[in-house]
């Protein structure tokens, strides 16, 4: 198996002892990506250690302090139910990752094999796959997700499944394009002539060579999944109000926006925007690293 062009990682000595030098060299070559990764890591820590970091139970109401202002007993105030907004925002990170990660996995597990097979087989299989994938992409994704979730029943699992389905064409297309470029390569022919079964050619020979574009897109797709799931929760599909999910929290505070209790929406909103930006920055950095054409120096 030959790799067409080595990933454009900075040229530093590798080895166990040099690991941190390698990491810092990568960090220096893409500061945007590194900041993004740090943001993601911070939110991941929030999600992991939420019970220890949150000062209050996220769904425990304090009836005597409904809509308390920030800076009182509650760091950033309470919402209309008298629940602590800060604690709820911390717990919200759990929902963000809890939805985005399975969505991404679904998109990869279903989309990548479809792309591999369509690209490898070519002909009418490829043509039909491409048309179906394009048809899915033509729709406004939020509408499609909403229509399916409301028809099939509102549950968190359905939300994950539907958003994941919308990721499938993205990954399938990326992988297919790389397979097409790779199919003419000698190693595929060699693998076929050596008598490998199709699944082995697809997953052992083609997969490692054709996954780069899909990998570079992963953070962007995570950003997208976080955004869409928050939008669905805002509308009230899949996740309902007292759940400490950011989109649902923004909805809770929506009516207070014109009466001045801004913190109910703004605090979870800022968390949401920061995480999305973190994912996009990491994605930009990854693209720079994995796509040699997009490197700063070459321009």
């Amino acid at each position, binding site marked *: 198996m030959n790799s067409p062009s080595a990933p454009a990682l900075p040229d530093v000595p590798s080895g166990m002892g040099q690991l941190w030098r390698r990491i810092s060299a990568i960090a220096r070559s893409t500061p945007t990506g590194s900041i993004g990764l740090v943001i993601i890591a911070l939110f991941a820590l929030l999600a992991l250690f939420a019970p220890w970091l949150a000062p209050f139970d996220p769904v425990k109401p304090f009836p005597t302090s409904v809509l308390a202002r920030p800076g009182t007993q509650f760091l950033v105030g309470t919402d209309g139910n008298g629940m602590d907004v800060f604690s709820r925002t911390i717990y919200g990170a759990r929902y963000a990752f809890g939805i985005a990660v399975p969505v991404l996995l679904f998109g990869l597990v279903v989309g990548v094999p479809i792309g591999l097979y369509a690209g490898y087989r070519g002909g009418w299989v490829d043509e039909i796959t491409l048309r179906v994938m394009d048809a899915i992409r033509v729709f*406004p994704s939020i509408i499609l997700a*909403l*229509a399916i979730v409301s028809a099939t029943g509102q549950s968190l699992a359905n939300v994950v499944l539907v958003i994941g389905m919308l990721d499938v064409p993205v990954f399938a297309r990326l992988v297919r394009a790389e397979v097409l470029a790779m199919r003419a390569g000698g190693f595929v022919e060699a693998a076929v002539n050596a008598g490998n079964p199709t699944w082995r050619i697809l997953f052992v020979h083609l997969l490692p060579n054709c996954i780069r574009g899909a990998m570079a897109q992963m953070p962007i797709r995570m950003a997208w999944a976080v955004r869409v799931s928050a*939008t669905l929760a805002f*509308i009230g599909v899949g996740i309902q109000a007292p759940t400490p999910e950011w989109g649902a929290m923004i909805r809770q505070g929506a009516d207070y*926006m014109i009466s001045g209790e801004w913190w109910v929406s703004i605090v979870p909103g800022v968390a949401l*925007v920061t995480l999305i930006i973190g994912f996009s920055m990491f994605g930009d950095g990854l693209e720079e690293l994995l796509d040699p054409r997009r490197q700063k120096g070459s321009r």
Partner: protein
Amino acid sequence: MTSTFFLVLRRAVLSLPILLGVLLFTFMLVRVGNNDPVGMLAGPTASAKEIDAIRAAYKLDQPVLVQFVEYVKLVFKGDLGMSWLSGKPVLGELLMRLPATLELVLLGSLVGGLVGVWAGMQSALNANRRFDHWSRFLSLLGFGMPTIFLGLALIFVFFFLLQWAPPPMGRIDLMINSPKLVTGSYLIDSLIAGDRAAALSAAGRLVLPCLVVAIVFAAPLIKQTRAIALDVMASDYVRYARAAGLPKPMVRRMIWRNASVPVLTYGATELTALFGAASVLELIFSWGGVSQFGLTAILKGDFAVVQGYVLLMSVIAIVIFAITDLLILKLEPRAAAGAR
């Protein structure tokens, strides 16, 4: 222009399978899982007589294939069924609300498109300078803002804090009579009627939601335009043009002409997505357009309307892509040669 005619014809023929796929999707929508299509379409308030009428209209006692053919026939006749929430035909309900959404999305995307493409081009021409850094930063920020949060944040700043914007409640002040219906856009209609107060009110109400649409549209467009223009700038012909000493404005024109086709293609895809984003935006601003109507129908389970709405959205997408193809033909004569 025979070539244009053939391209339009080809486009229409190519759109048919997509339309059929969409019809299959909306047809399946009320039949997936253990759903009873009669119950889904009739709604919880339907009488036995209404249920029988629906069963007869859609031939629901026949095999599924016959049902689908009947469904397609009805759709092409313009019969999209009845909304059980309003008791009126779906097609009329949708078309009545379409202008409000078109007004919002088209005006917003026009502003966002001009700003986004301009900033993206400037970014590429001044790569890694101050303008580039700022426009990339703003693009990143805009991309990170979900429509729901952007809308609410703008309402908070411009309505509550600064008190510059009118309240986010509908398309025109309640105290002002809406203008005589011509196009369905309050702004255009009041201008036609010469009603100054109505025009000002309608324009004022448009500013914030249009700003949201413009930002949502411009942010990814800046990034894409920049990347596309940089690709063009790295090409051999641009390098040659520069080496040959062509004046800068001419080189810029050359870069723009070559970048315009992929930028347009990307913009068209984004534009179709805006109609989906408009649904939550209209909800926040109580806009009352077709996207909010479709969203409400989805939430209330008014599936005759949901079917119609999804169909309408796909027709809009097909029209957008068709117009894009024609524009590309104008910009790139080579595409016409390839199409035949």
